[in-house]
């Protein structure tokens, strides 16, 4: 790598794939690989404006406890975790774009939590960030296994490589943050909140990396994930749940954007990826009503709730909403526009904050 330079005053952690390497990949004989590299090049162009590559150990090295400790593994298309180590912290980029995207994505996520919320990694204590790529054959999924992130390659027909969307990487790591904080159940409304928190912080990771305001952000989850032939723009839309895709194979985006459309189901742990549309849109409404960079205030309120110790594991939407109201008032005051935005945001999606956090008389549809 020849493009390294030291940024003395602002240590940064996210390394991007050297453009020359991506250029080479983009001209690869392997069409699939070339296509992916080209897409990455296009997308990374915007991010490159903001990011700088920090040199490895230098005199200006930040305190050790404030640096990410990333390790990327390659599962070699089987389902054994973690796989073979292919890139460690500070190592140069490798030829495999999935590895480099995962590495950069972990760095971007670490950076948002550190700079945005003064949180040192997932557990707040500098936890090592591990990720495995190339999990399984044409595996159409990514997940957090309780210890690390796991990414499939996608089948190329419906889904692309799951490392292609930065918000997906942020989403998975945010599951880790939730696990170490409120530890929301992965069932029913608590599960939908768990999912929504991951979408919120996943989207914020992307917005932070791109330097976007709430107005500029696309509020899409997995915008780079759908393969070319799929009719859709992403997997989920926080701005307009239910509108992300409408496709012959995938079906139509089933997410509701308000309690009117709450889906009662036993599948997917009580529709955790469906009903998350409701708190997702609440966050969008709050962030755009406040304006500016979404992680600075709306994100701070959500983060305060997640880490404040009052959010019950089995919290429902109304209990969560009440805690965001309390957090906004505590941080910004009872006459603040932040508090007004939070109250209006939940009202927009038909959730009435519980009188007391965890109150069973929540004005929301009970699940199962």
């Amino acid at each position, binding site marked *: 790598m020849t493009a390294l330079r030291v940024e003395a005053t602002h240590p940064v952690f996210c390394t991007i794939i050297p453009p020359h390497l991506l250029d080479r990949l983009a001209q690869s004989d392997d069409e699939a690989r070339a296509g992916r590299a080209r897409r990455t090049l296009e997308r990374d162009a915007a991010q490159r404006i903001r990011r700088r590559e920090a040199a490895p150990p230098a005199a200006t090295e930040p305190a050790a406890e404030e640096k990410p400790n990333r390790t990327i593994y390659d599962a070699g298309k089987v389902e054994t975790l973690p796989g073979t180590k292919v890139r460690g912290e500070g190592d140069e980029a490798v030829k495999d774009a999935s590895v480099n995207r995962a590495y950069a994505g972990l760095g971007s996520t670490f950076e948002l939590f550190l700079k945005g919320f003064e949180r040192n990694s997932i557990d707040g204590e500098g936890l090592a960030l591990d990720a495995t790529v190339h999990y399984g054959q044409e595996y159409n*999924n990514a997940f957090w296994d309780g210890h690390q992130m796991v990414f499939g390659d996608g089948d190329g027909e419906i889904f692309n490589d799951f490392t292609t969307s930065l918000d997906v990487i942020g989403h998975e790591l945010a599951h880790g943050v939730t696990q170490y904080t409120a530890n929301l159940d992965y069932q029913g409304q608590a599960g939908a909140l768990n999912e929504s928190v991951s979408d919120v912080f996943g989207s914020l990771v992307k917005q932070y990396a791109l330097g976007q305001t709430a107005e500029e952000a696309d509020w899409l989850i997995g915008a780079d994930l759908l393969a070319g032939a799929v009719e859709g723009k992403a997997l989920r839309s926080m701005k307009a749940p239910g509108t992300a895709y409408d496709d012959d194979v995938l079906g139509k985006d089933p997410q509701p954007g308000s309690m009117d459309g709450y889906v009662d189901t036993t599948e997917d742990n009580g529709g955790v990826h469906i009903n998350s549309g409701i708190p997702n849109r609440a966050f969008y409404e709050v962030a755009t009503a406040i304006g500016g960079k979404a992680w600075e205030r709306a994100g701070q309120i959500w983060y305060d709730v997640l880490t404040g110790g009052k959010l019950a594991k089995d919290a429902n939407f109304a209990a969560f909403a009440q805690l965001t109201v309390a957090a906004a008032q505590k941080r910004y005051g009872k006459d603040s526009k932040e508090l007004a935005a939070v109250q209006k945001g939940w009202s927009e999606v038909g959730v009435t904050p519980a009188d007391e956090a965890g109150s069973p008389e929540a004005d929301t549809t009970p699940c199962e």
Partner: protein
Amino acid sequence: MRIQVKRTGGFAGITRRAEVDTSGRPDAAEWHALAEEAAAEGRGEPPAGVPDGFRYEITLDGERTVRCADPRIGAAQRKLITRVLKEGA
């Protein structure tokens, strides 16, 4: 033998169902052996699973259902699920 697979959850939260009827198939015996092996690896209770992980239900002849979830699923289950989702209707 009718082998049904239902996959729920996943990052996308999209449910997929597929079914293979082995009657009349030249490779029926192979399917049956794989199905029995997969059933033996499973259990009736839904497993805990992990965030965004796929959950699977394998049902044989509409009578026996076993459940499993990524990433801890048996080798025969993985093979059967992959084949049914790929070849099934």
